[in-house]
């Protein structure tokens, strides 16, 4: 099915999310839609699938103009979308999720749906348990279910919005194989929305690059990476350097620490983190790295072993004591755990002042203070902007700006998840600057490249067990022995 978008316009107040976008998707191709966060990719796809109505422009399906007022209508034309956060019903069973796609029967055809699920699963090598509840599935499996649902509904065009965020490496391989098969063997059109260059390079036949609501270019395979970057950002990005750092005294020592929850036990971890060191915690999500990170900052109490902070015993001390000792923790859920929804940047600034907390708030001083941070950290927002109105990248900037100036240990979960390259590089510049002043950094990431590029050492977790740390030199090049170590780490991640 051929999709033509002509001069699509969508404005949100003064923001021109889509400012006259024209593109054509040919049948049987994988079409990449590339752009940094906020470039208008998702808005465009929501316009195409009837989630939001455009302020101008025309959509043609196989040459005929169409007008969708709801996603249900677009799927009747065979256009279906997989949202970044799968749009399914988590507490319901897999089978019921599939059944909900069909309508107009009093008694649902459970047997038929079970058969459809089985056939489609076999065709694409998915293994989905029809009776499992969706909230027990991984994001990757929920995606698979959504793909099957769209196929069961007869979708000819499948749109995927940032599908690789939050799925494991083997799931990504399977996803890409599935998409290739859909396009090449079954003649469907796939629109692959992403801000990740490598993925678009790897998968797509054609790519349209968006920047600030406008098309900056259409390219055909083979792509040149520097050209894509130029189109995305309007400039070439410099390669990041990792300046060598002399490691200082041990900041954190874990001595034979065991952390136990009823789901998972992480046994006998010993690890010494020195000032200025960056350690990456790798592994499939839920393999124990988060528990261990939280044990390092006092959010999990170890059931045995000792946690030393600057040589002092901090085992079973409270999170507050850890904070007072110069530890900070940035969780993965920026808006859920890191920031307070509904409060403005100024209010966050006031709350973040740990030492100086007068009874009456000096709002003028606070507004000045946060304005300085906004300028310094290049946050796109004003002092009175509520944090939930910030984009993901700016939320991360705000969190970083609110950290106390001198830190012994900074623990981060997925520091750059969901951020575009520019923001991600900026975040790491900030972190490396802190490292130069002697802060030790512990971070969890699902991004292998990030782990390899940024860490001095990588610790791999698998099913709660920590493999011995992989040491590496300050420089990293692909094809070197160091990278092989990294690949070993990668294989451990995949095997789990």
């Amino acid at each position, binding site marked *: 099915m051929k999709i033509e978008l002509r001069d699509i316009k969508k404005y949100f107040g003064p923001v021109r999310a889509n400012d006259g976008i024209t593109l054509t998707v040919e049948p049987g191709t994988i079409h990449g839609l590339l752009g940094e966060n906020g470039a208008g990719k998702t808005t465009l796809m*929501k316009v195409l699938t009837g*989630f*939001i109505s455009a302020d101008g422009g025309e959509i043609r399906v196989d040459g005929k103009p169409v007008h969708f007022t*709801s*996603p*249900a209508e677009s*799927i009747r034309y065979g256009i279906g979308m997989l949202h970044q956060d799968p*749009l*399914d*019903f*988590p*507490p*319901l069973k897999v089978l*019921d999720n599939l*059944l*909900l*796609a*069909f*309508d*107009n*029967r*009093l*008694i*649902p055809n459970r047997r038929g749906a079970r058969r459809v699920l089985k056939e489609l699963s076999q065709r694409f090598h998915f293994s989905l348990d029809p*009776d499992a509840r969706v909230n027990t599935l991984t994001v990757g499996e929920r995606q698979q279910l959504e793909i099957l649902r769209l196929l069961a509904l007869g979708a000819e065009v499948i749109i995927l919005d940032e599908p690789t965020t939050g799925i494991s490496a083997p799931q990504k391989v399977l996803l890409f194989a599935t998409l290739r098969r859909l396009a090449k063997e079954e003649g469907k059109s796939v629109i692959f929305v992403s801000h990740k260059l490598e993925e678009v390079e790897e998968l797509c036949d054609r790519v349209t690059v968006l920047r600030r609501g406008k098309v900056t270019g259409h390219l055909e395979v083979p792509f040149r990476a520097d050209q894509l970057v130029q189109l995305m950002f309007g400039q070439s990005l410099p390669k990041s350097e990792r300046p060598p750092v002399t490691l200082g005294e041990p900041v954190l020592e874990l001595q034979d620490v065991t952390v136990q929850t*009823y789901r998972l036990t992480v046994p006998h971890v010993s690890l010494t983190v020195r000032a200025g060191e960056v350690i990456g915690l790798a592994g499939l999500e839920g393999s124990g790295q988060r528990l261990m990170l939280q044990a390092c900052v006092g959010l999990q109490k170890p059931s045995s072993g000792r946690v030393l902070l600057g040589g002092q015993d901090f085992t079973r001390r409270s999170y507050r004591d850890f904070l007072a000792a110069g530890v900070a923790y940035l969780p993965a859920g920026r808006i859920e755990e890191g920031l307070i929804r509904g409060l403005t940047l100024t209010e966050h600034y006031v709350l973040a002042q740990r030492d100086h907390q007068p009874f009456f708030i000096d709002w003028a001083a606070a507004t000045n203070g946060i304005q300085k941070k906004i300028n310094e950290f290049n946050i796109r927002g004003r002092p009175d902007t509520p944090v939930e109105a910030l984009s993901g990248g700016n939320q991360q900037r705000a969190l970083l700006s609110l950290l106390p100036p001198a830190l012994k240990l900074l623990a981060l979960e997925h520091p750059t998840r969901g951020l575009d390259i520019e923001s991600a590089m900026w975040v790491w510049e900030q972190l490396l600057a802190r490292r130069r002043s002697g802060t030790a950094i512990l971070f969890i990431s699902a991004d292998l490249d990030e782990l390899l590029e940024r860490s001095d050492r990588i610790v791999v977790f698998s099913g709660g067990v920590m493999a011995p740390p992989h040491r590496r030199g300050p420089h990293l090049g692909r094809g070197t022995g160091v990278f092989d170590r990294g690949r070993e780490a990668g294989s451990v991640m995949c095997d789990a």
Partner: protein
Amino acid sequence: MNAVLLIRTLASVVRGATPLVFAGIGETITEKAGVINLSLDGTILLSAMTAFAVAYTTDSVILGFLAAMAVGALMALIVAFGSITLRQDQVAIGFVLTLLGAELSSFLGNPFVRLKGPSVPHLPIPYLADVPVIGPIFFNHNLVVYLGYALIILSWLYIFKTQPGLKLQGIGERPEAAFARGSNVNLMRYVYTAVGGALVGFAGASYSLSIKLGWSHRHTAGNGWIALAIVIFGGWHPLRVAFGAYLFGGLKSLGSIFQRVAPGIPSQFFNGAPFALMIVALLLVSSGWLDRLLIRLPTRVRRVIHDSLLGAPPGGLGRVFVKE
């Protein structure tokens, strides 16, 4: 206690819990669709008064029930209009309606206080009522009680075994996803809120025309809150909600029995005890120890027990759905 007394007590539990079954399942249906109708206590009062007034005036029990259901649906539609169309806070609207319903029932019901009016006739089911033990407990009542049984089964079948029921779960769990699959979320929410409200109205009528005959000021006060609590206790599952209603009824009559046995203890203790016991029961099923216990069982068994014991509120409960 001898067997006859026990059977009589259990029969009165079954009978007395019937309005809670209607109100609890009505509210379950509403909340499954994602709307909280907090006005239950006021709605039950107003519909109980209306039922009695209409039945007294027209001498028709059926008209009384119908009028009460209309009142219940109307109150629910006010909640729906306020929250869905005007996008106001559901809790605030519900509270105000609770107070309004209570005051209005006292004001409008003034002429009907302590009158003797019509009631639902006793109707033992032939043959079934003669079965030993079970017969007198379950089948020696009136039509309202039997309709309660039917509602329990039908609502369970509807919600979990039919396509529209599945969609009902969908719009309550995740309205955006239901919309993407073609459901008219807000229209459906209106419909289910009204249906749930009508059942709550039926509960009110079953007090004044069957369980607690007649009308007096604050005739049924408190039962609406109990019904709301039972919905949570029942984990938004009609069978468990019904069980909760009967359990609460049972605990209450247990209280009155103990009161006779131990007259030294103040009656407030026995009146309050069922609530405390409900909270304990809720803690038992919702705390982590059950999970720890279940983890030792095989997956299939675990799933069944988990599903039957633990309930979570619908994901979209109380959240307004707005199309982008």
